[in-house]
């Protein structure tokens, strides 16, 4: 960026205050890979407890939104807030500066993520995967961590596979363990990045079933990227359609899916629905 970064950041609040602080706020966030702009001045608020689904063609930047929030990607401009606090930046002498590693770790603790390819730790059992973070990061004793992990493995229907290594589990089972692993860290925000895309069709429902249960049971804020329009319609409070690094259109599932205003939205939806 050519202009002064400090001046640029002065227009962003140090923290979000007031009655309706969103759980997640992307404020004017831009992400580039070299000359390619993946996200272009994104503004997106997600309220506490809200389930927001991001859909869109590949390369539209939807996965990048989740990865930035998980701090797996840096951002080029703008500020991301989580629970009112800046995530990508921190306050220093009354102004925002780039977050250091300690600040990132602190705010990141509110966020959990599940991946398309599960990314379970292959050298640990299902239970081992779920107690690793609680023991190493939250400082729980092994007994406490195991109790909590077993509750969660039970929640995702995997308690009987607690001693199995990931290589012994099917894709759907691995993804359910991965959800339990993320939940064991007690996140306020859960991110689901195409969690059913690598699964065989017949096991997709075991994972969507778990996510549906989370919507019902927990007051979790959730952001999901998916190609499953039907599932998105069923559980989302809001759906955002991304195109070329921008939100093309957003609204409730009924509004967006049944009565899309935008021509590109209509084209995308008809293409996807035809494929399904």
């Amino acid at each position: 960026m050519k202009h002064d970064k400090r001046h640029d950041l002065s227009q962003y609040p140090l923290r979000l205050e007031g009655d309706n602080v969103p759980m997640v706020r992307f404020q004017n966030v831009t992400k580039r890979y070299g000359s390619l702009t993946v996200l272009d001045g994104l503004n997106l608020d997600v309220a506490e407890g809200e389930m927001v689904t991001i859909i869109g063609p590949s390369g539209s930047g939807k996965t990048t939104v989740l990865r930035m929030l998980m701090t797996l990607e840096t951002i080029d401009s703008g500020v991301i807030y989580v629970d009112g606090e800046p995530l990508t930046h921190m306050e220093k002498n009354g102004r925002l500066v780039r977050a250091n590693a300690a600040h990132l770790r602190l705010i990141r603790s509110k966020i959990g993520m599940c991946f398309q390819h599960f990314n379970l730790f292959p050298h640990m059992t299902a239970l081992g995967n779920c107690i690793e973070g609680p023991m190493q990061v939250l400082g729980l004793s092994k007994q406490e961590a195991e109790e909590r992990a077993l509750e969660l493995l039970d929640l995702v229907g995997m308690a009987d596979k607690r001693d199995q290594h990931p290589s012994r589990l099917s894709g759907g089972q691995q993804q359910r363990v991965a959800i339990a692993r993320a939940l064991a860290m007690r996140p306020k925000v859960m991110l689901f990045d195409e969690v059913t895309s690598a699964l065989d069709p017949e096991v997709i429902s075991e994972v969507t079933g778990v996510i549906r249960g989370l919507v019902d049971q927990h007051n979790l804020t959730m952001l999901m990227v998916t190609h499953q329009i039907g599932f998105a319609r069923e559980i989302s409070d809001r759906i955002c359609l991304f195109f070329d690094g921008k939100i093309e259109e957003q609204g409730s599932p009924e509004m967006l899916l049944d009565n899309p205003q935008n021509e590109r939205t209509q084209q995308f939806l008809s293409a996807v629905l035809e494929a399904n």
Partner: protein
Amino acid sequence: MLDWKMDFTWEILPRLLLAAGNTMLAAGGGYAVAVVLGLVFALAQRTRSRTLTFIVRELVEFIRSTPLLLQIFFIFYVGPQFGLRLSPWAAGLIAIGLHYAAYLSEVYRGGIENVPKGQWEAARAINLSTVTTYRRIIIPQALPPALAGMGNYLVGIFKDTPMLSVIGVAELMHTANSIGAENFRYLEPYTIVGLIFLAISLPTAWLIRRFETALRRKMGLTR
């Protein structure tokens, strides 16, 4: 023709077996240095500090591009000029350990780079620190594929220990030379040395392969 003397063989065997103990000690000690220092070299090249990465990278290249024998001589004979006065054993272990650390660091690097990116991302998603991520997630997965290379270098370091004889470490080769010089007979001592090396190298290589398989199974990395 072949003039093998059995009574001479029995006479020198205890002395050679004792020296074999020294050889194993030198190989084991040098390897212990190499295993730890190699990991330090490998990790130093993965830090964010470009300067550190550059220095360690060049050091590793330098060590790998010069003969071990020269390094042994250098540390033992030139070291004192820099105030580094070491016993043959200490100089030998440092030289051989440093040399093999350079090679092992490459083995580790390969193993670490082999761990999928998704493992780093999953570790970050549960907020593990960088040190914990290496210790609990990355290194345990980098180890089994690195074991074959590590085993090769264990056998390699073992076979290179005769070089320590040049600075007077009383290992197998050194002892065989002495016996030969004292008795004007070289056939028996050198033959026995060769057989002892074989008798240790072959089972070691086999044990390492067994260990690798067992480790993979124990870690659940195979079906």
